[in-house]
C-alpha cells in the first residue's frame, strides 16, 4: 500500500519542478510573442467568423471566461478600482494568465460603473 502513493508523490514533485522551469524563464517583461501578435492583429483584420483565430480582445476573453464558472457578472456592476481587486481574485482562482487577465481588466474598467 505504501509504494504506489510514494511513487505518485515523487512524480508530482517532478511535475512541479518541470512547471517551475516552464514558468520562470518567461518572467521578465511582457508575455513573449506579445508584440508580434499585436502586429498581426493590426495588419490582418479579424476574421468574420467568431472562431478564435486572431489575438483575442479583452471583450472576447471576457465572454470566454467570465460565465463558465458562474453566471456572467457585468462590467457596470463594479467600479474600476473594485474590478482590479476582483480580477486579481479571478486570475488566481481560474488560472488565467496575467496578460489575458490585464486585457479583461481593461475591458471591465472601460465599461465599469463609477
Amino acid at each position: 500500500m505504501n509504494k504506489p502513493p510514494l511513487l505518485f508523490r515523487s512524480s508530482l514533485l517532478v511535475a512541479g519542478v518541470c512547471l517551475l522551469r516552464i514558468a520562470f524563464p518567461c518572467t521578465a517583461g511582457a508575455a513573449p510573442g506579445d508584440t508580434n501578435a499585436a502586429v498581426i492583429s493590426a495588419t490582418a483584420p479579424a476574421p468574420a467568423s467568431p472562431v478564435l483565430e486572431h489575438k483575442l480582445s479583452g471583450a472576447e476573453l471576457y465572454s470566454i471566461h467570465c460565465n463558465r464558472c458562474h453566471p456572467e457578472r457585468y462590467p457596470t456592476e463594479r467600479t474600476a478600482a473594485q474590478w482590479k481587486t476582483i480580477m486579481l481574485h479571478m486570475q488566481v482562482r481560474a488560472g488565467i494568465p496575467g496578460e489575458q487577465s490585464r486585457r479583461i481588466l481593461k475591458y471591465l474598467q472601460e465599461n465599469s460603473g463609477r
Partner: protein
Amino acid sequence: MTGLLTAGSALWMATPARVQAEVSDADFKALQETVAKLADEVQSLRQTNQVVQQIHEQDQVQLQQLQQKLAETQQTANDAQQKAVAVATAQTQPLPRVPLDEATVNHNFMMLGDAEMQFVKPNQGNGSFYMADFAPIFLYRGGDNILFEAGFDTTLSNNNNPNTNPPNQGAGYTTTFNLSFAQLDYVMTDYMTFCAGYMLLPLGTYTERGAGWLNKLPDNPLPVDELIPGAGAGVQLRGGVPLGETGKIFNYSVYGVNGVSSSDTTGNAGSLDLNGNVGPNLHQDPAGGGRLGIFMPYKPHYDLELGISGMSGQWDNAGNHIWTAGVFDAALHLGSSIEAKGEYIHTQFGSDQGNVAQDGWWTQVGYKLAGLNLEFPGINNLELIGRFDSVHGGYNQTDNLYNYSTRRYTVGYVYYITSAFLFEGDYEFLHSNDPSQVNQLILQLSYGF
C-alpha cells in the same frame, strides 16, 4: 494761522509811534515778551503744521496703496469666480470614461460573498426553513500582485436536535461561524502565483467553484462531500500558461498541506478525518498534491476543460498508513445554453483493518430555456438541471463492512431573478443502503453579492 501771523506783524508795525510817547519800559518789556511768546507760538504752530502736512502726505500714499490693493483683490475675486463657473460647467458635463489612475488606488478592500435561504422537505420528515448560509468573502488587494482572500460560512441550528442519537435536548440555537478559506496570494509572474494559508484544494474543480450562487443545485455532489477534503493548511504554486493565441490555457497547481488525519490518533479505518488537520500537524509528514488541466475554447461559450488531480499523504498519527485520492474533472459548454460537467473521484487508504477503497462520480447537465427562443414570460430566465451522483465502497463502522453504496438522481431548475439572485428548486431521489439517506425536496434562494 496766516491770519494770526499777519495780525501779529501788523501790531508790531503799528505800535512804535505811540510807544515812544506813552509806553513805559516795563510795558514795553511786557509787550516784547508777549511778542516773543507769540513768535514762539507761531514757530511751534508752523512745526505742527509741517508734521500734519507730512502725516497727510503719508496718508495719501497709504490711501493710494490701499486703492491699488483693492483693485488687485477685486481682480483675484473675479478670476476665482470665473474659475468656479468653469469648474461648475465642467462638472455638469459627463467626464470621459477613463480607468481610475491606479497610482491613487493602490490598495483596495472589498466584501463579496453569498447568502442562501432554504426550505427542505424530506420524505416523511418535517418541512423546515433554514438560513442555510451567510458566506462573506473578504478581499484585500495590496498593489498589483498581492491579494488576501478569506471566506466564512455562517449557519444556524437548533440546540434541540431530535435526529442525533441520543436526541439533543436544549433551548435556543447555535450560530456556527466557520473559516472556509483564508489565503495570501502573491502573483509572482504572469504564469505563477504563490499561495499560503488555509486554501480550498484544487482536488477536482468543484470545491474551488462551489460557492452558493455558482452551484446550480442547493447541495454539493455526494462524492465531493464524502470522499475528499475541501481545504487544507499549507502552501501552493499555481497558474496558467497560454498555449498559442487562441485562448487555450494549460493550468497547473502543486501544493503541500497537513493532509487528512485520524480523529482518534489510531489507524482504525473508521477514524479517517478528511477536514480536521489544520495544525499542528497530527502526523510527521505533510501531504502533497496537484492538478494539471487544459482549457480549450473554440469560440466564446464553446469550450472544453479537462483536468487530472491527486493528493497523497500519511493520515494516522503513527504515519503507518497512506491516504491517496485521484480525481478526473471535465466541463463542457456548447453555446450559452448548454453546460455539462462532472468528476470521477477515487480514494484509497491503508488502515489497521486493511485497505479501504472508495469511488464516486457525479455529472450534471444544465439547459437554459433561452436557447429555445420562445416568447413565454419568464421562460428565458429558466434553466433546467439534471444531476446523477454516486458513492461506493468505504468503511461502514456500524457493521464493520466495506459496503456503503448510494446513488442519487436529482432533477431541478434555476430561475435567474438576476444573474446573481437565483431561485432554485430540486427533487432528489435516493437509492442507498444507508437508511438516513432519503428522498427530499429543496427550495433555495441564493444571492451572490
